[in-house]
């Protein structure tokens, strides 16, 4: 499978890349995606944040993300959203339906943000969360009894400490729940003291794993004179059959069941990215996995993209191939994703051969968790109103979207997925128009 001369080529495999590809398909054009791996979406919490907090000396929590975007733009007029907020709704819709086509159901609260418990013992703000997390959200004013379940040996999530913390942190969000905790011991993987989230998810994908967990919970609920309104689990309920396990657990518990959010554990992020890939493939996108773009060059009425195919190292240089396409969308992510490189006082975007200069003390605050956010997070490529990169040498045929863009701070604003969706939809649409 190759990209051909009538495809828009999307570089990247994360949230923005997928939305850009979808926009091209929706415009009736064909698209190919090249990516070495799932990027930072793969280690994300698998949730969609659009606009959660307007950062500043006195950060403002947004209840309604649409109002939040307006408030943000008042404060930061040059923000990335100023160019692409018109496509926000379409972009988010596109993402939701792609995920749904891959059986990953994202649920939202009709413009309202929701706070879900996480592995640190605090809460994270999102516009949409997967069905596995939906029922865990804080319901302001509701007196609920919530049980937090930990798994012995799964050291990334300490249920007892988390429950104590949820009890305190919910107050600012109006939560009135009572959090309890317990630890269960799963024996199916043998005599091990420590088990990672990934190993646990693998085990819970098996029949035996499911059976063991469900029967443990069933026994716990049956022999307990306390009843709970909600039971929270770490985000490990399988990579593949989590919907099934969730349904079984709900039946066994007779109450709401949810996973907490986690960063870096790969389970939820993996589910999300694979679901979106499935959705895209169903619609006819070409996904060229394990392919990395190495060089962009302007061509007559198009762009030449030199790629390396396959995993490479110093002994295996990989096969080089050059695709010539009418337009390219760059969705390569920020520092973590790899779209922006930084070494030895230099910050640059490799594919654009563009240097973003040095990181200076103006862009870094001495305070690690600063309410106004760290400014280095806003570094990235400058684009025109149509999302094409400003550099003239590409004749307006290279577009950019997502975290590689300059002008937003996804961590402080809780805007990562929203920016990706809005900017990518616009970029994809305009790239498709070049064919």
């Amino acid at each position, binding site marked *: 499978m190759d990209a051909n001369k009538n495809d828009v080529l999307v570089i990247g495999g994360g949230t923005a890349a997928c939305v850009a590809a979808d926009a091209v398909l929706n415009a009736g054009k064909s698209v190919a995606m090249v990516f070495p791996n799932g990027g930072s979406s793969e280690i994300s919490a698998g949730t969609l944040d659009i606009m959660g907090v307007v*950062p500043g000396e006195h950060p403002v929590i947004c209840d309604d993300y649409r109002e939040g975007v307006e408030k943000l733009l008042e404060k930061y007029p040059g923000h990335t959203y100023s160019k692409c907020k018109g496509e926000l709704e379409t972009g988010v819709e596109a993402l939701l339906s792609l995920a749904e086509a891959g059986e990953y159901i994202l649920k939202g609260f009709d413009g309202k943000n929701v706070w879900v418990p996480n592995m640190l013992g605090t809460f994270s703000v999102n516009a949409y969360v997967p069905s596995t997390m939906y029922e865990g959200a804080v319901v302001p004013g509701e007196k609920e009894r919530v049980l937090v379940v930990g798994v012995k040996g799964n050291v990334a999530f300490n249920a007892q400490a988390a429950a104590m913390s949820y009890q305190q942190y919910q107050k600012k969000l109006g939560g009135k729940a009572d959090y309890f905790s317990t630890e269960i011991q799963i024996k199916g993987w043998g005599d091990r*003291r420590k088990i990672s989230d990934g190993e646990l998810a693998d085990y819970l994908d098996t029949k035996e794993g499911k059976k063991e967990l469900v029967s443990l919970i069933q026994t716990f609920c049956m022999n307990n004179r306390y009843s709970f309104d909600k039971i929270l689990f770490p985000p490990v309920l399988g990579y593949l059959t989590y919907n099934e396990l969730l349904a079984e657990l709900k039946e066994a518990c007779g109450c709401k069941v949810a996973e907490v959010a986690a960063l870096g554990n790969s389970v939820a992020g993996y589910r999300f990215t694979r679901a979106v890939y499935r959705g895209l493939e169903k619609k006819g996108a070409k996904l060229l996995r394990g392919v990395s773009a190495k060089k962009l060059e302007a061509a007559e009425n198009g762009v030449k993209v030199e790629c390396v195919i396959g995993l490479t190292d110093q002994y295996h240089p990989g096969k080089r191939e050059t695709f010539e396409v009418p337009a390219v969308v760059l969705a390569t992510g920020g520092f973590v994703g790899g779209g922006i490189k930084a070494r030895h006082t230099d910050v640059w975007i490799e594919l654009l051969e563009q240097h973003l200069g040095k990181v200076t003390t103006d862009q870094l605050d001495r305070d690690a*968790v600063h309410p106004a956010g760290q400014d280095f997070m806003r570094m990235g490529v400058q684009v025109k109103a149509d999302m094409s990169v400003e550099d003239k040498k590409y004749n307006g045929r290279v577009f950019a979207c997502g975290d590689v863009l300059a002008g937003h701070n996804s961590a402080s604003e809780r805007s990562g997925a929203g920016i990706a969706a809005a900017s990518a939809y616009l970029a994809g649409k305009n790239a498709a128009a070049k064919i």
Partner: protein
Amino acid sequence: MRENFDVVVIGGGTTGTGVIRDLVLRGFKNSLLLERDDLAAGTSGGCHSALHGGSRYVVSDIQTARECLQENQVYRKIVPQVVDPTDAIWVAKTDEQMEFAQKWMKNADDIGLPYEIISVEEATSEEPLLTKDIRFALRTIDTGFDPFRLCIAQAYDAKKKGAQIRTHHEVIGALMDGKRVVGLRVLDKTENNIYEVYAKLIINAAGPWCSQITEMAGFAIPMKPNKGSTGIYSMRPTKTLIGILRTPADGDGLVSQGFQNTALLGTSSVDVDDPDDADPGMDEIKIMEDSVAEIIPDLREARMLRFCTGVRPLYTTGEETGRNISRGMFLLDHEEMEGVSGMITITGGKYATARLMAEVAVDMACEKLVGKVLPCTSDKELIYGATTKEEAEKEAQEIHEKYHIPRYAAHKFTARYGEFAKTILEKYPDQAYVIDDAVQMIGSEVCYSFKEEDVENFKDLRRRTRIGMGQEQGTFSIYKAGGIAQQALDMTPAEAEECVLGYVQERWKGIYFAAQYGDQLPLSELMQEMYVGMGSYDVLSLE
């Protein structure tokens, strides 16, 4: 009630803890050590993790080289598990360096420093990242070590044997009786309580802050605080300590930290006015990296985790500055010098010569207290917890089998705690799992250090356990320590938050500089996503 001590030692660095250990060994058990922050929180903790075996100073300062050589052998005997005998390879590339090598070997012969000349082929096959165009190489003894652990071990050795150690207690005034210092006014920083202690003798081992102490007694001493910046790489490009044969200058070498798989680029030398105001110099790091890249070109591919700095307590009565000031030790008898009795100062020196510094200081203390020098045994008595390498290996295997802790982690663990390793796990078996995968630190250590090693917060915890000092800089480990503290140490969520964020903030200090260098921006972004984006500590803080 008035507190009376034989001796009060000021400073919880390696000199101060060495002094209190020696005092106790010579029978002065009624002694107290006061430290304004935590053990090894100042110069000792900012050290570059090479316990010099003498090779660096062979030409520039032969007396210091001699002392380093002697003391290195002593430490290998009295606290073997903390010392990592990595050895060193010194190389020469230029004519000037070749000439220096000749001088080096002559002096090494004079002081009895063992070395062997090795062929360039042998050197480059042992260390493949060394450039092939070096002209000369020699192998000599040298050691890496954990500067926190050694300092802590000395302190607790004294504590077990009867002395008192008070960390987070700051000396804020001297109690004078005419021209005699009779005691100190102390601020307990945890309780914000000010109290007085009296002592027959005060030993000032406050390092670069020495003059601030003597000023309380009415006179200044000519300290020249001198900053050394280091950069820490995320991996070990070499097995051994690598150095360039030349007069000590910025960027002479790379210290390979075997105990946590990082390497340290060191070390610059810049005079500073205030020892509390010492940021690592960006230019210095650049110069040092350029210099070492001359012999290890691939160093430029390595990622710098963080920059840090320590301030040397250099002392001079002359006009010299920076590298020209001796690294030798100075024992100051203020009765003789300024006519103020009741206080002596021990300063200067190297980490590697701290025990010897303690010995000469306590010799003088003996004379002042009992009129004669009592025999010193600090070079023979094992330091608390000491185990031999073989015993530590054996214990690591047993720990691996009993607690299912990976061998690698168990090995690092026994190297930190020596014979106490097993006890820690026996006491806190519920947390016997690795919580920091980068430095292989075990959850039980959190409980142990809070309960038994006077830890007040997670910054102190880092010095005991090295948590978060590896590649992830605490991003994925420190919240786990917070969880354990809530679960097993009765911390409230607010207290745990303070500890976790205090730690993130402390790590950020070093990352802040590495980020300007560019290397740490991906990790910085991840940290932001973790503690701001997901953790929401910016808006939900319980503070």
